């Protein structure tokens, strides 16, 4: 009876006695961990010595065996393509470990993240276009009318009104540009980053350099936009926090990937926990991670106190090319 229940459970399960020896387990446990040996050979073996069991689970089990009470949850263990949720609990001198396949949930999460970011960009694009093409020209027209009126009546009293309108017009252009750089859509990724760097070099203390090698015009629009936003965020961080004097941004196409590196000679980061604890910086970093995740890329940060900071982002290529 007990065996039948364990066999039929919709989760992978393994029960270990107080000495850490495997007492029983089911097929699902095997299939999740991709072990294709005989079940029986494992009965009686020490779980901590079974090499193909993920390290996290072993650490959890070890802890429960030592404490002789309590429980653990690992909400996400990645095993190749599979995402597993692992739970363990100490009951009756045994540890019961369950594994749950959460790949579908993960996939849904990933897809919804993609949709959220896409929707956010669409909304931004809409607002930017309305500001730039809708309100912009109306403002320009009113400035011109006012100008004409002032010339005709030789009346200078309205000069300050005109100046305010001109400021509003400039401001609208800036907002629209931040929401969606028109250059990116019309001239592509490389030109857009050149412009970003050029603008910063005119006002920031840090001197920016940009080097690109590859066929970035062929990238899908959404991919270009994501890479642009990633670079924007990284560059902003350099300007705001690094105290760097030089920053080198590179976008290089390799055979199968794009390597994006942002290298600065600033103060670096001593302790990474400050990055995630700081709320404002934290949000920027989270957004950055989401974008990298959508591009199926990886982030690597290398830094030490006063040794500058290098962020490397590697993005796989074939998926991101525009096939139309």
């Amino acid at each position, binding site marked *: 009876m007990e065996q039948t229940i364990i066999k039929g459970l919709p989760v992978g399960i393994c029960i270990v006695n107080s000495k850490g020896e495997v007492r029983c387990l089911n097929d699902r446990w095997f299939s999740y961990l991709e072990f294709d040996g005989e079940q029986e050979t494992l009965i009686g073996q020490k779980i901590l010595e079974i090499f193909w069991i993920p390290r996290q689970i072993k650490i959890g089990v070890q802890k429960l065996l030592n404490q002789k009470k309590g429980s653990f949850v690992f909400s996400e263990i990645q095993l190749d393509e599979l995402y597993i949720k692992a739970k363990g609990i100490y009951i009756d001198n045994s540890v019961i470990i369950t594994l749950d396949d959460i790949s579908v949930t993960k996939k849904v999460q990933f897809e919804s993240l993609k949709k959220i970011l896409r929707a956010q960009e669409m909304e931004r694009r809409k607002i930017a276009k309305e500001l730039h093409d809708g309100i912009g020209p109306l403002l320009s027209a009113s400035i*011109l009318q006012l100008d004409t009126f002032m010339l005709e009546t030789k009346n200078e009293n309205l000069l300050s009104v005109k100046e305010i309108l001109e400021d509003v017009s400039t401001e609208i252009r800036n907002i629209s540009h931040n929401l969606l750089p028109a250059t990116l859509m019309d001239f592509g990724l490389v*030109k857009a980053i050149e412009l970003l760097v*050029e603008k910063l070099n005119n006002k920031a203390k840090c001197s920016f350099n940009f*080097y690109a090698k590859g066929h970035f015009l062929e990238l899908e629009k959404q991919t270009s936009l994501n890479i642009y936003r990633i670079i924007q965020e990284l560059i902003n961080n350099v300007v705001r926090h690094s105290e760097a004097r030089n920053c080198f941004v590179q976008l290089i196409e*390799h055979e199968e990937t794009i390597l994006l590196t942002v290298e600065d000679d600033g103060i670096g980061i001593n302790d990474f926990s400050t990055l995630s604890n700081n709320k404002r910086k934290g949000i920027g970093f989270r957004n950055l991670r989401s974008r990298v995740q959508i591009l199926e890329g990886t982030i690597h940060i290398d830094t030490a106190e006063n040794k500058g900071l*290098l962020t490397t982002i590697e993005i796989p290529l074939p998926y991101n090319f525009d096939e139309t």
Partner: protein
Amino acid sequence: MIKVLVVDDHKVFREGIATLLEKQENIEVVALSGNKQEMYNALNQYLVDIILMDITIGKENGIEITKELTDNFSDIAIIALSMHNETNYILEMIEAGASGYLLKDTGSHELCEAINTIYNGGNYFRGEVAKAMLDRLRNKQHPQNTKKSNIPLSKRETEVLKLIVDEFSNQEIANELFISIRTVETHKRNLIEKLDVKNTTGLVKYAIKNKIVNLD
């Protein structure tokens, strides 16, 4: 009389410009066009000296239209009148053949001055537009872009390259520069791709040939 045609997809703006220009004694606005087709219709009907051309004309592109016009109507001068103040638009418009570039919020005085200057055979690039062009020019002459070799290397890349020449292993380079092995590998991969060589030996050759290192 200078005969002007205004091409812009916003009616309010076209008409605003017309009202303004009609007050000038030597300027006549012959037609207002909201798209490319209307513009060609007007060109068939009237003699035109100068076209004031928007860049984003609904779904049509003022830069493309300008190219078409300079190829086919060499006697018509084109002044871009746009919301875009980004360098790329300005440069593309000049390349397409525009004789002047004005931002839509420039005053009526500049607009008339531009029309008169260009009618008399000149060009008109002032204020923000001239500044954007200068910035691009200065950036091209940025010191780091004009090193001995024309491929710019970052500070770290140069350091890594020097250590490679000195026969340091990845691990030794990592220790020397306080960076991870993975970062050393990233720099190496980028160097190989940038300098268009096949392997580490190629990097060493490049470094010596371009005097990035001095051999004693």
